[in-house]
Every structure is written in C-alpha cells, then in structure tokens.
C-alpha cells in the first residue's frame, strides 16, 4: 500500500481558504474603531467575494472541493460523532462528516455576516451595494444581528480550530500544513487530485482586479445621498465669528427656532441681530436642520433626541454623547481642542456637516501642546 501523501486539496481550495482567513481577521481587527470602517468594509467584501468564488468552485472543482462531496446525511454525522466518542471513527480522505457540516455552517454564517454588513452599510452610511435601496431604519436595525453573527463566527472559529487540532492528533497528521501544501496520506483506493493552477491564477486575478477597482480602500464613493448641500456663506459669516459655525444638521429644527427666539440671551451674549437678518438665518438653519439632512450624523441627532426636548447645545444631544462616550475627558481639555464643542479640532470635515469616519483625527492627549523646538545641530 502506497503511504506517500497525495494531493487532496487543489490549489483554488487552499488559496480561497487563505484569503478567507485573512479577510475575516482583517474584518475583526478593523471592527472596533469607526475610523477603520473603510478597511472593515473592504475586508468584508473580500470575504463575500471569496465565498462566491468558493461556491462556484463547488461546481467545477476537484473531487473533495465539490458540493457533491458536501452532501452528507445527518445519520453519517451522528455515526461519526459516536465513533469519535468510542474512539473507533474512521479516517476520511477529504473532510470527515462532522467537518463537512461544520464547513457548511461556517460558510453560511460568514455569508450572513457579509449580507447583514452590506445592509448596515447602506442604512448607516448610505453607501455600498444596497445604498439607496434599503430603508435607513431597516439597515440600522441590522447592526445588532450583524454583530451577533460576527460573534457566532468567532465561536465557530474556535470550534473549527479545536476540531482541526483533535483530528490532527487522532489521525497523526498535520492538517493545518495539509491546507497549505494540499497533501494528505492516502486512504486505500484514493487518487490524487489535479492542482488546477490555471483556475487558481484566474481567481487570484479576479480578487486582484476587485481590490484594484471597486474594493480599493480609498475609492470611497460619495453618493449624493450623503453629501450635505453647501451652506450659504451668510451663515458662516454671521454665526462663525465667536465660535465655529456648527453645521445646522447637528440640531433639530425646534432647537434652532428656540435658539433664534432667544438671540438676546445667547449663552450670555446679546446677538442683537436685526430682525430681517435673524429671519434669514433662521430660515437657513431650519432648512438644513437634522430632520432634513441626509448625513448619518444628522439622522442620529434627529432620531436620538426625544421629541419633548430642544437641546440648545450640539454637545447635549444624545447622539453626540453616544458618539463620544469612549473619549477621555483629557482629549477634550488638551490644548488644540480645549472644549468639546470645537468639532473642527478633531473632525476635518466639520464645516461641511459630513463627519465621515475617515475625517476623524483627535489630537493625542499625551503630546505636549507645542512640539518641542528641533534640536540645534
């Protein structure tokens, strides 16, 4: 009997496995910080693309990669599990029945994570494949399920690793390595599968093209749905002398009405605006108020502020508090910022009202206010 390892996993299977692992890891690492959202989206779409390629390879791939090999009845899974407990489960050339079901479960979970992710992106950011096609509230409602599914993937991953370790020990074979070089010890009668280098190269080309084109991290489309309209310069001139001219989309219309009605006691200042000018400003403010603005920031303000409240400060809205809950107080007190309402110090696009993830650059509170002078040579 020939005991030399034979090729069991063709090259496309191994390549897709590697890309999938990389994509999932990148998606996890970029999921914590809103500023990494672009990376997160790219990683998620990469996972989605790999799943599609893998599904296709199930139709045209070699023996152990085919969907046909995945058609394993529940009875076989149960028998294999019992065998494992008893210690007399047989070895398989491809996946064992338990592993087959685990594969199907993991791939389905990942597909669901990707799909819900695209929905969340459409709802919260107004970008991506479903942009404009999915109702905002529905998209946002998917955020919870998306996270839950992602945790399920993490749990599944632990089981997957445990299964691989157990099977490696049980069959005295380095299975992680076999997913790299593709070879496994042959069962009686098993035949090596072809490598399929051409198919693997084609897949690599598809992924590379996608990464160079639609998936490129800096290729962020700015659909009209998220681009706030340019403001009348009158507003910046009249309301931007004592402080930055906060974008009107940061407060509900009722807040602006209250603010303009109390302009003679504006946080202790008498603005003394002539009635005609005050009317003009009020119209501008209400026209671009949170309820009527397309950005995510505006939408959160409009939705998160209880209808019986008219906060006069942007920093008093529940949306603002929630977005900044994780920031330490020192970040706001540090020199270039000095106050929580100096949005421009941390958000490069504050004046436009966009407040995109990519535009967030909070100064490091650990740094001295002024950089030390360069040392004399």
């Amino acid at each position: 009997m020939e005991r030399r390892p034979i090729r069991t996993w063709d090259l496309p299977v191994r390549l897709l496995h590697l890309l999938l692992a990389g994509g999932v890891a990148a998606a996890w690492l970029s999921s914590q910080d809103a500023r990494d959202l672009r990376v997160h989206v790219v990683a998620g779409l990469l996972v989605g693309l790999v799943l599609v390629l893998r599904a296709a390879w199930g139709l045209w791939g070699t023996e152990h990669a085919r969907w046909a090999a995945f058609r394993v009845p529940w009875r076989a899974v149960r028998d294999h599990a019992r065998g494992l407990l008893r210690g007399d489960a047989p070895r398989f050339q491809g996946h064992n029945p338990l592993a087959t079901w685990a594969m199907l479960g993991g791939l389905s979970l990942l597909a669901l994570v990707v799909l819900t992710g695209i929905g969340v992106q459409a709802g919260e950011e107004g970008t991506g494949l479903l942009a404009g096609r999915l109702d905002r509230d529905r998209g946002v409602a998917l955020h919870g399920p998306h996270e839950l599914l992602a945790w399920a993937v993490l749990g599944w991953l632990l089981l997957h690793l445990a299964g691989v370790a157990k099977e490696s020990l049980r069959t005295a074979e380095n299975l992680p390595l076999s997913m790299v070089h593709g070879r496994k010890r042959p069962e009686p009668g098993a035949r090596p599968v072809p490598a399929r280098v051409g198919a693997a190269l084609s897949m690599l080309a598809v992924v590379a093209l996608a990464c160079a084109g639609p998936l490129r991290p800096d290729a962020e489309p700015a659909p009209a749905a998220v681009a706030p309209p340019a403001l009348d310069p009158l507003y910046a001139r009249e309301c931007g002398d004592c402080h930055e001219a906060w974008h009107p989309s940061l407060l509900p219309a009722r807040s602006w009405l209250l603010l303009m009605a109390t302009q003679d006691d504006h946080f202790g200042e008498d603005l003394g605006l002539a009635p005609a000018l005050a009317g003009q400003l009020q119209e501008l403010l209400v026209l671009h108020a949170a309820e009527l603005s397309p950005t995510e920031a505006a939408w959160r303000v409009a939705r998160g502020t209880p209808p019986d409240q008219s906060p006069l400060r942007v920093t008093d809205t529940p949306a603002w508090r929630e977005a900044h809950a994780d920031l330490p107080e020192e970040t706001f007190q540090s020199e270039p910022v000095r106050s929580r309402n100096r949005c421009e110090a941390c958000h490069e696009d504050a004046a436009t009202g966009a407040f995109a993830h990519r535009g967030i650059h909070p100064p490091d509170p650990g740094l001295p206010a002024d950089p030390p002078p360069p040392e004399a040579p």
Partner: protein
Amino acid sequence: MKTLPMILALALSGGALAAGGGALPGLLAGYQAAGATAFDADRGAALWVAAQPSPDGGPARSCSSCHPADQRQAGRHARTGEPIEALSPAVVATRLSDPVEVEKWLGRNCKWTFGRECTPQEKGDLLSFINR
C-alpha cells in the same frame, strides 16, 4: 511700458487704504451729531483695558479679554477660544470699513463687557484708539 503696472499697484493700494477704516469718518460724525464732543484715542485706550467686574463671578471683563491690549495684535475669544484677527485697520484692511458691522459688534461687545450700551462719546473714543 513700466507705468501701467505702477498705476495699477497705486490704485490697488489706494483702494485698500480707503477701505481700512473707511467707515470711521461717517461713524464719528454720527456720534458727534448724537451729542459727543471731540474724541480722544488716549481716553479710548484707557477704557479699552478698564476691568469691569463680571456679573456671573467670572474673571473681570474688558475689551482686552478677547482683543489684546495692543489693537494691532490678533486675539482670541475669551469664552470659546475662537481666533480673532487684529482690529487695527492698518493690520487688517477690512476693519472699520462697514458701519453696520462696526455698530453690530460695538453693540454686542459693550453689552457683554460693561453690561450696557456704550455712549456715543465712548464709541468714538474706542474707535479712535482702534484706528490709531
């Protein structure tokens, strides 16, 4: 052939000079019509830095809370930290060029600093100081 650019440069700088502080003569005439006598930039300078107790117990207030004692220097809003360009028309050419703008800010700033409107005499003295 060299005269054309020179004429252009002269015309431009002349225009800028006329714009900086351009609103002053009209404003001062208006204050005098409202009862003020001759204006004194030194009196204005003294009023500029005269500290007023703050009604809310905060630090004492003066015009120099936000604009520095030297009207040729840029300042910073005492409450918000927003940078403010120098008020002197010799430094920032658009200053004291629009009477409505000047009256608006005098109205706001006198109320916040002194808790009342400035008299025409005080306004004239302060503007004379700023223009010095």
